[in-house]
């Protein structure tokens, strides 16, 4: 489990905390979505989860290892993978295969095992036919999947995706979400920082971060049902949830927790 206890973080030259007393847990195989308006500290949170940044107060522990402990740094980085927003700037090598090999090579894994891991990783993300391709010719979605394969080859327990879909087209986003779901099935705990509410609706748990504080935390049904809080911070629930809410305000009795069109249709018929 990744555990954040009262984590506070400020940038070195600023007084105002970017993250303020954040408590959060991520269990293996769980999908946690983190949403929030701009400037809420989401990206900072991503970097705290794998030790790229260290909390000013409070603690971040990964499977019991504290990120501030200097000897555990590389082990923590191995366990908590991070995928960033720009698909291009994460791929290091001139071919897909080489890039996926990069992580295991850094860990000193022996060549035969690296080869096995590359195959497994590319199979998981559905990019096996592209092993010898140049990353340059891939679409954004494909590049992100290769990036995920590269991290998966290090056998992480958790994966943090920092707005990994925001530069992708709808097809790329769908492919990525499918990959994330495969990962959770494999027991990898995934933290998705996103502003696409329909992605957040697929998570097991949604955390709403506003100005560095956890404003709301719960299942998607609980969080998206709380329309007043969302509206106050300029956030929107998925379309179906919004429509259900408008209908309820118009006097129509509808069950709580409607998140997608299918559920709404069922409730109305």
């Amino acid at each position, binding site marked *: 489990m990744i555990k954040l206890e009262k984590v506070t973080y400020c940038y070195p030259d600023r007084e105002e905390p970017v993250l303020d007393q954040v408590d959060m847990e991520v269990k293996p195989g769980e999908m946690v979505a983190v949403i929030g308006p701009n400037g809420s500290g989401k990206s900072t949170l991503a970097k705290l989860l794998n030790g790229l940044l260290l909390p000013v107060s409070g603690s971040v522990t990964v499977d019991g290892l504290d990120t501030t402990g200097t000897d555990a740094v590389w082990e923590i980085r191995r366990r908590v993978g991070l995928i960033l927003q720009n698909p291009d700037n994460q791929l290091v090598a001139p071919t897909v295969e080489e890039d996926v090999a990069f992580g295991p090579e850094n860990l000193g894994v022996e060549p035969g095992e690296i080869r096995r891991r590359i195959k497994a990783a590319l199979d998981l993300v559905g990019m096996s036919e592209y092993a010898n391709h140049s990353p340059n010719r891939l679409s954004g979605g494909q590049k992100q999947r290769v990036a995920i394969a590269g991290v998966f080859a290090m056998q992480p327990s958790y994966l943090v995706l920092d707005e990994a879909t925001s530069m992708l087209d*709808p097809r790329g986003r769908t492919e990525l979400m499918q990959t994330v779901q495969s990962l959770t099935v494999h027991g990898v705990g995934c933290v998705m920082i996103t502003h696409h509410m329909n992605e957040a609706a697929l998570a097991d748990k949604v955390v709403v971060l506003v100005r560095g504080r956890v404003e709301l935390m719960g299942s998607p049904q609980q969080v998206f049902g709380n329309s007043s809080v969302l509206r106050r911070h*300029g956030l929107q629930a998925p379309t179906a949830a919004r429509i259900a809410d408008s209908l309820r305000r118009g*006097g129509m009795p509808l069950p709580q927790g409607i998140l997608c069109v299918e559920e709404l249709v069922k409730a109305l018929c």
Partner: protein
Amino acid sequence: MLRLKDVCFSYDRPGSSKAVLKDIDLRVEAGEFLAVIGPTGSGKSTLLLHFNGLLKPNVGQVLYQGQDIHRKGFDLRGLRREVGLLFQFPEGNLFGQTVYEDVSYGPANYGISGKALDRVVEAALQLAGLEAGFLLRSPFTLSGGEKRKVALAGVLALEPKVLLLDEPTAGLDPAARENFLNLLKGLNSQGITVIAITHDLEEVSRVAGRVVILAEGQVLADGPVREVLTREDLEKWELETPEVIRLGKALNLNVEGLPVIFEEEAVKTILAGRG
């Protein structure tokens, strides 16, 4: 006003002779807001680059106000003043030390200077939703959304009649996206013809009047928003039918005989139906 007539185009690449655009015939009237949608790789960006002459068709003509823009003697450079183009992720094209320097690049290329230049730059900033205070700031200290507006101002400073946009809201968070869309809507209502490539069908329904589906280099559909977005075969072209429209279809919601495409109409219609 603008027309692509029987246009065919393929890139001259070693090992790739695939036609990117095939037999395109597309007319755009002054003042329209046209959205071009379609799966990745369908040739949408290539199509857009034909409208201002950055790409030349292998077959066919590009007509601006009736004239072939590739015939000898046509002022292509002058055309680009009237037909402005904003690329995808245009923040990456910013280079000026100040916002003023960047925005003035366009008009300065056409010989505008001095007070006239100042005027045109300020007007463009305002149209793009930025206050005058931004003029002397470095573009690189601005937020993503603000940078994009600076890039837009850089195109608006040319005072174009037509605005070509390649995925104008790509990568923006919901609030910034809403903001930018309203800007574009405003520009269109002031008479600027807008041709926008987009993947977001929800935003298409909010701002566009007409939609064209481009797939595998050909025009598959061309018609009013309500007609095209409610088609049954959208999924086939990797297009996600917006949730409201899916709801409308499932519940057979109609307003004045036309299928529902907006949230407000959906809510009203449902409540009226059960009232």
